[in-house]
């Protein structure tokens, strides 16, 4: 066929807003009057922000999400092209330093409604129960103020809402099954499976990924085009833009896109009063709110808090502990590439395709604490060329030659847990951005344990590739997934927020995104970020009284136990789908925090 049957493909009408080929934004968005005080304002409608917005709107709060980037129309704004997808990432200046500087932009954060979930690869493993007790178990890192049991029901909820495709039995951590069936395997995944089975390493095929393996309402089945990281125009890969935001808007949430929040404002009574932001036209505006939730991710959240320094909080808002910006983490994301004699064509199939978590937990014999996972990645040509530049030192004719072999290479990624260190941090640089706000400066150093882990892990991945039949194996060091910068904890002197993501210092200021994680595990953080957001929303809903009557100080603390779980706040079309599956063995929490029984299920 030389051209599509019946002529050109459908294109969006003028008044349509497409969220994938079938889904449309149905309802016009509610607009609060300028100067109106709303109940809750959310800074950043990303992974966490999108879920918060949807939950809170459904629960009847008056919510506004303020997002620095655009409100994407997937058909008009996104392209099926590697270089053309530049605008999906947070490309404003950040300064990076330290002995092992982090790369940002395409490597780390998103911008625009949906945030990082627009360009994530959508690997969605859960954290292991041990991830929440790293300090007690291994004497390194930190403990979480919450346990796996607290998050588990939200994992289950979000896995259905996204929905997550994966095997019926996932053996690691707390074993469980997935609501959607697994995906077929692309080239790199086949290499991983071949290598692992040859070495006797258990491997999980075709998931867990938040990519539809079956149509999900108006979101089609994946078409295996491999452009996940460039934004899934198909709408098969979950982003909060297409899974939660439409529902939020239907229930009366407002999103102000292209609006950059400059600072969070503090009132005289020690409570925050709202935020100041630059609107689409660059004018400074104020949005008053009874509660402010900052969901700007690991760099922008600390930056905003530091930029909001004011009387009483000279070091940065909610930073009496001095921990804001500290304990920044990234996962070791070394890409190991193997050349195979048979064509692999790794541009096809989602890059997130198969993984093994066999090396996730601490093994004393390995000589370092914590562990790593091995996952598939599927770099497209430009990314692959850059990787080859580092991995083989390729340039000139050598670059041309190795790139002509692009279709013979398979790439696997290490995903290793780098521990939280105080000297890895976000601060403010002297430079300012186009709004006149000081930009973030990060400092990142690997410590001994991290380096041992990376060396061991890379070795393991290379072994797997060789066992799969690779004739040449090379690797490129890299980091993935930012975490930390406003960590949660029970002790106000060493943490920024409590177990409900509420700041210790200011009772109506919340931080809810990847920056609150005290440790990061070797699992991709996205699912946990969204699950945590759903839990935070449940807390806010439970404290509705206190919020609406402006008495945030009377909101219950963590000692009051976990809030009731709302099973009825999922977006439309969540129930009645999915395969029969294994519910994990560990029981859902009977006893919440502080040993108190949990309230009834909402």
């Amino acid at each position, binding site marked *: 066929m030389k051209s599509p049957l019946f002529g050109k493909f459908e294109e969006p009408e003028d008044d349509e807003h497409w969220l994938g080929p079938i889904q449309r934004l149905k309802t016009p968005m509610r607009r609060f009057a300028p100067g109106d005080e709303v109940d809750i304002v959310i800074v950043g409608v990303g992974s966490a922000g999108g879920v918060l917005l949807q939950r809170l709107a459904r629960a009847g709060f008056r919510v506004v999400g303020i997002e620095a980037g655009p409100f994407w129309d997937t058909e008009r704004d996104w392209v099926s092209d590697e270089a053309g997808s530049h605008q999906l990432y947070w490309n404003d200046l950040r300064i990076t*330093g330290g002995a092992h500087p982090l790369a940002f932009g395409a490597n780390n954060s998103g911008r625009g409604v949906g945030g990082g979930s627009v360009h994530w690869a959508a690997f969605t493993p859960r954290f292991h129960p041990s991830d929440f007790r790293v300090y007690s178990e291994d004497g390194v890192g930190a403990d979480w103020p919450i346990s796996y049991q607290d998050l588990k029901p939200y994992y289950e909820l979000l896995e259905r809402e996204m929905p997550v495709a994966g095997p019926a039995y996932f053996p690691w951590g707390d074993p469980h099954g997935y609501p959607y069936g697994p995906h077929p395997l692309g080239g790199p995944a086949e290499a991983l499976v071949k290598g692992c089975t040859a070495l006797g390493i258990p491997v999980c095929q075709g998931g867990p990924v938040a990519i539809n393996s079956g149509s999900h309402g108006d979101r089609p089945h994946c078409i295996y085009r491999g452009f996940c990281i460039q934004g899934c125009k198909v709408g098969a890969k979950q982003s909060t833009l297409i899974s939660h935001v439409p529902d939020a808007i239907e229930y009366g949430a407002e999103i102000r896109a292209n609006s950059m929040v400059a600072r969070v404002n503090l009132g005289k009574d020690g409570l925050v009063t709202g935020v100041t932001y630059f609107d689409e036209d660059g004018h400074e505006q104020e949005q008053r709110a009874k509660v402010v939730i900052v969901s700007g991710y690991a760099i922008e959240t600390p930056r905003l808090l530091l930029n909001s320094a004011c009387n009483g909080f000279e070091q940065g808002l909610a930073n009496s502990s001095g921990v804001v910006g500290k304990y920044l983490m990234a996962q070791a994301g070394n890409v190991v590439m193997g050349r195979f004699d048979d064509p692999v064509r790794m541009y096809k199939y989602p890059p997130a395709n198969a993984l093994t978590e066999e090396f996730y937990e601490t093994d004393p014999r390995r000589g370092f604490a914590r562990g790593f996972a091995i996952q598939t990645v599927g770099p497209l040509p430009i990314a692959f060329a*850059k990787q080859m530049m*580092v991995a083989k030192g390729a340039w000139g004719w050598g670059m041309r*030659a190795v790139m002509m072999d692009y279709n013979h290479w398979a790439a696997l990624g290490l995903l290793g847990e780098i521990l939280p260190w105080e000297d890895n941090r976000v601060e403010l640089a002297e430079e300012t951005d186009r709004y006149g706000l000081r930009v973030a*400066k990060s400092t990142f150093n690997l410590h001994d344990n991290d380096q041992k882990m990376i060396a061991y892990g890379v070795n393991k991945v290379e072994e797997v590739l060789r066992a799969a039949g690779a004739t040449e194996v090379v690797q490129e060091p890299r980091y993935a997934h930012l975490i930390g910068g406003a960590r949660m904890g029970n002790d106000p002197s060493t943490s920024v927020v409590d177990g409900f993501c509420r700041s210790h210092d200011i009772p109506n200021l919340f931080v809810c995104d990847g920056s609150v994680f005290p440790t990061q595990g070797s699992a991709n953080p996205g699912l946990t970020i969204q699950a945590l957001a759903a839990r935070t929303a449940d807390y806010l809903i439970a404290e509705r009284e206190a919020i609406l009557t402006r008495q945030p100080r009377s909101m219950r603390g963590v000692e009051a136990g976990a809030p009731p779980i709302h099973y009825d706040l999922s977006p439309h079309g969540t129930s009645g789908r999915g395969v029969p599956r294994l519910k994990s063995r560990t029981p859902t929490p009977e006893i919440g925090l502080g040993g108190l029984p949990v309230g009834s299920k909402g």
Partner: protein
Amino acid sequence: MDNANTDLLPRNPTTGEVLPPRAQPGYYPGYSTLSQQRFWDAATHEVVLRRVHQAQPIRFFTPDEARLMEAVCARIIPQDDRDEAHRIPIVGPIDERLASGRIDGYRYEDMPPDGEAHKLGLQAIEAIAQHLFHTPFLQLGAGQQERVLKTIHDGEPPAGEGIWRRMSAPRYWMLLVQDCVAAYYAHPYAWDEIGFGGPAYPRGYMRGGQPEPWEVEERRYEWEAPEWAVSSEYEPLGRGHETITPGQGGSH
């Protein structure tokens, strides 16, 4: 200078014969992503075709710098095996990026802004050329040009200390190479060369390692870089590149 021209071309390693320039080098003769453009969605179509058909005027570099940059990029991504009509512009897109101030979202603390780094880098390259061969870079033979660049690749530039005090050589090297490959491998001609599928929406894929109906099987041929080429040997980047991650998308 006829000989010089054939000097630039890759050869058949067994016979030693010069391989003439082709419209489409690579192992996928007859494969064309552009021929599939009717299966692309409108937005992608526009972006890719603009890349192919619109030559940008140079705005950021001065004419002298642009000439030097052309020569440098011609060694970073040599295109002598392509015929004139099928060469891929590299300096154009780099200039366009720098002129419009588009960055990758970060800057190393020991690096000046990207535009400045590129300008400084060109000065340094010129200085190294003078140091090694007492000749301007533009007048050097391709082999000598490669040797000039190789010193930066190795992280041991023999000249331009003043410049290297202001920026790190390996980081500049990676900036330069990244920009070049980003321009080259964003072009449909390069996709045809390496057998990459190009845009894939609304039509996706159905076969894993096998070619799709509109793709072609690989047909390899023997070739090797010209004799003078030092870039055909793979050598690790200089000065502990392990600690320097360029970082790019395309991974988890």
